[in-house]
């Protein structure tokens, strides 16, 4: 912020010196030591971007909570069709859970490697992350396919509508996350660890970890409680 005054620079000068300009600076060092607090000036872009993305993720989680609420209300409305206990295969869910957890971990390792500017290590961990994500999505598609083959598609009962909406929405997020992951790998490879790329990588990491948090709620409420009920 040394070249040109941004609106927040102007605002900070206004707040420190009042509306009539100079002359009210008892300590004599202006805002040169601004450290990102209030009138001191804007926080660094990395913090602003990360915070903004964090707020987006929380809103995404709020959207998921609506799907969870719908599922919780409709879980027993099977309309004479199959119940969760008959449909869910907990072994497959355990493998899916392991895939997503490992990919969340390797995603973190990739980020640590990126902060240390290690190209090959970053690419390796991100590739592992993507492969585990792919296995996860594959298993989920297989599950959906088998259920629809058995006549337990989303149109069968309110329970299954809510199930496909909730689990499918999460699977869609993982798929989009996988595409984003591939894009990030290419950008890191061709453009290097520039600050904008690192900010995107930070956001991607937050996204991927948040998906795992949602999966924790999902496998507990939908699969484990559903199979036990």
């Amino acid at each position, binding site marked *: 912020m040394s070249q040109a005054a941004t609106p927040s620079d102007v605002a900070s000068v206004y707040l420190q010196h009042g509306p009539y300009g100079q002359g009210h600076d008892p300590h004599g060092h202006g805002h040169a030591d601004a450290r990102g607090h209030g009138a001191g000036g804007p926080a660094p872009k990395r*913090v602003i971007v990360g915070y903004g993305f964090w707020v987006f993720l929380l809103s995404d989680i709020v959207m998921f909570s609506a799907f969870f609420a719908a599922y*919780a*209300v409709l879980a027993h409305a099977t309309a004479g069709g199959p119940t969760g206990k008959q449909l869910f295969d907990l072994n497959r869910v355990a493998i899916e859970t392991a895939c997503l957890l490992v990919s*969340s971990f390797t995603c973190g*390792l990739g980020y640590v490697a990126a902060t240390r500017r290690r190209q090959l290590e970053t690419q390796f961990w991100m590739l592992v992350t993507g492969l585990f994500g792919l296995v996860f999505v594959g298993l989920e598609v297989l599950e959906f396919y088998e259920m629809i083959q058995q006549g337990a598609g989303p149109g069968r009962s309110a329970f299954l509508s809510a199930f496909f909406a909730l689990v499918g929405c999460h699977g869609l997020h993982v798929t989009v996350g996988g595409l984003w992951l591939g894009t990030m790998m290419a950008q890191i490879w061709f453009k290097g660890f520039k600050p904008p790329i690192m900010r995107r990588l930070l956001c991607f990491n937050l996204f991927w970890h948040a998906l795992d948090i949602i999966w*924790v709620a999902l496998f507990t409420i939908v699969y484990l409680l559903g199979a036990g009920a």
Partner: protein
Amino acid sequence: MSGHDEDWEYDDAAPGDEHAGGSGFSAIQVYLLGFLLAIGLTVASFWIAGSNAVWGPGIPAALLSLAVAQMGVHLVFFLHITSGPENTNNTLALAFGVLVVLVIVVGSVWIMAHLNHNLMTLDQMKRMQH
């Protein structure tokens, strides 16, 4: 622009930033610790759901507690959300998000569970029209 680590001297932390010099663990050790804790909690969840070790009616409560614990582990060890002053904004946003989630989920379940109880029956409604 110096390019790297341009803002480590600032006081606010972005969510996901590992904190320099806070815990005494390296970044990888923090991820590893979180990973091991998450594995333990996941295994416990699947084991409780598939065994008779816990008293039947207590299983949902046990599973929900394990899930909340695991979400906490993910938040602290993977997303690096802490209670420290540099994380105040992130924590406040999270607290508000949790509040909205609870209102939506608990509110929906609560209302829908009492819907039949609170609605008038068709007979009562007909009687009111006279």
